[in-house]
């Protein structure tokens, strides 16, 4: 009976998404651009929930429990996604663009890493966990949303912290003065924008040595993503699995371990959690397909940003001063949540358009016309459908210490994603697969931050265990 009820609810959610899509289509065919985001979001949500795919658990479970399933899953996804990314780049169908490279990426990653461990999920993981009914994740997403929105807009005393070099560099760009008012505006325009954006295939070394399309496969996919991913898989095996596996194997065979045993060990690690590894493959392929479809929509409507279509539909007020809205063209998480936070604060009377982030770059669309925000909503509903079908949906109000961890972790994720222009997806996963070394820099930061977060939680839980065990 309960199973039947859950199935009905799951189909109701799916029906709602279909209805919403049809209503958008009826309102204007241009909204099909936005509908594509909804359905890819839905697909991501279903896959993330089924595979328990959370970037926080990749490093956290490795450090806290010695379990490598998620780290392995992400590396598998990365390998598949990078090959598709390279294929799209080679056929001029990619929407990928590298990000400015600098120490800021590493520092941001560290802050984000601590945040995702405290919150109990990364930016994408928190969204899918909302779909499972997890109230703590709602707080995390609120922390991400408002943390970012406030961070990009605060000026006042913080402007005293802006170095002269940033001020000079910003001034040289002749941006509208009424849009450059916060500390983050100077950081972005006077520091980040001056940093080089590197894509391996476009560096002189690779583009001269590898003419034609091969540079995308060799530089961006093989060197940037596949080789490092394989090395990491071997390192994880060596540190976490090898000893136990070889001991068990030698007991069974009665012989000392050889190379073939180590290969068997790596394979057993890759297949230990089939649902995570299989989802790694499918997520990698889907993320590539998403880029392909978005590029197709851009070609169909003759635009490079959804802001142009919003303006054509009479919603120019949704866009930035440059006529754009946030429209990444691929899987992305945090900016749209920042826009949601900014939209709420704007409605409450806080001028959120007097900064570069909303005012010049990303706009502040009404949430129902925000394409990337629909992708996030799609993730929630996709995960909800999946968890209902597998009888795992349960609404849980956040209580006690989890309220603090959710809000604090979410805010740290917001603060750790904005300076790097992305999170575990936009700043790590997409960049690494696209041949941008700043992705690995962010990844190293994330893992370091996660390590610190795990150390803290280990200490915290040890204290609580000791208190519980005092009675026996």
């Amino acid at each position, binding site marked *: 009976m*309960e199973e039947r009820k859950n199935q009905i609810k799951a189909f109701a959610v799916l029906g709602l998404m279909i209805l919403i899509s049809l209503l958008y289509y009826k309102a204007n065919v241009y909204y099909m651009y936005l509908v594509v985001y909804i359905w890819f979001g839905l697909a991501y949500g279903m896959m993330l929930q089924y595979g*328990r795919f*959370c970037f*926080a*658990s990749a490093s*956290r*479970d490795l450090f*806290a*429990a*010695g*379990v490598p*399933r*998620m780290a392995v899953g992400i590396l598998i996804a990365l390998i598949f996604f990078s090959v598709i990314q390279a294929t799209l780049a080679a056929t001029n169908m990619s929407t990928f663009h590298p990000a400015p490279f600098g120490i800021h990426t590493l520092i941001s990653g560290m802050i984000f890493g601590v945040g995702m*461990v405290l919150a*109990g*999920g990364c930016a994408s*993981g928190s969204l899918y*966990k909302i779909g*499972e009914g*997890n109230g*703590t*994740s709602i707080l995390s997403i609120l922390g991400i949303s408002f943390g970012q929105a406030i961070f990009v807009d605060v000026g006042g005393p913080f402007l005293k912290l802006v170095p002269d070099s940033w001020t000079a560099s910003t001034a040289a760009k002749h941006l509208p003065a009424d849009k450059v008012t916060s500390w983050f505006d100077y950081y972005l325009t006077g520091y980040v924008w001056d940093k080089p954006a590197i894509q391996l295939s476009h560096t002189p070394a690779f583009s001269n040595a590898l003419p034609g399309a091969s540079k995308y496969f060799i530089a961006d996919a093989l060197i940037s993503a596949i080789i490092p991913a394989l090395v990491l898989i071997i390192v994880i095996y060596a540190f976490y*699995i090898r000893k*136990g596996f070889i001991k068990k194997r030698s007991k069974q065979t009665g012989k000392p371990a050889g190379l073939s045993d180590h290969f068997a060990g790596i394979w057993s690690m890759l297949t*230990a*959690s089939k*649902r*995570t590894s299989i989802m790694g493959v499918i997520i990698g392929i889907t993320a590539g397909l998403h880029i392909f479809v978005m590029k197709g929509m851009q070609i169909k409507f003759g635009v490079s940003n959804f802001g142009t279509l919003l303006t054509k539909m009479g919603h120019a007020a949704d866009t930035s001063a440059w006529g754009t809205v946030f429209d990444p063209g691929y899987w992305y998480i945090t900016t749209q949540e920042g826009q949601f936070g900014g939209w709420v604060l704007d409605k409450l009377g806080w001028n959120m358009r007097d900064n570069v982030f909303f005012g010049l770059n990303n706009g502040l669309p009404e949430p129902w016309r925000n394409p990337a925000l629909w992708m996030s909503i799609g993730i929630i509903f996709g995960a909800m459908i999946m*968890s209902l079908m*597998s*009888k*795992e*949906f*349960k609404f*849980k109000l956040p*209580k*006690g210490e*989890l309220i603090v961890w959710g809000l604090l972790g979410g805010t740290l994720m917001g603060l750790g994603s904005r300076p790097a222009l992305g999170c575990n997806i936009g700043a790590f996963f997409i960049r690494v697969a696209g041949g941008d070394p700043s992705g690995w820099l962010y990844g190293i930061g994330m893992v370091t931050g996660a390590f610190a977060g*795990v150390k803290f*939680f*280990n200490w915290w*839980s*040890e204290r*609580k*265990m000791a208190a*519980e*065990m005092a*009675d*026996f």
Partner: protein
Amino acid sequence: MAMKFEKKGEGVYALDVCGYVCPHPQIYCKKSLEKIAEGEVLEMTFDNPSSAETILQMLDQAGHDLMEKKNEGGKIVFKIKKG
């Protein structure tokens, strides 16, 4: 909401981490298993499905035995014998 770890009987312990999200259930499971002796049983109750996948692999790697696994309306119960 509070984590509960109690001795239910001779060689049987109960860990209740319902309401907790990642990483708490897996950390408490690991720490509880560290506290009990080989051959003793831990009955763990939690309601965060994402933790299940990690706990299952952790048990397998460490050589513990999952004797029973139940899902009762979103509450997951693992009966684990320490190996």
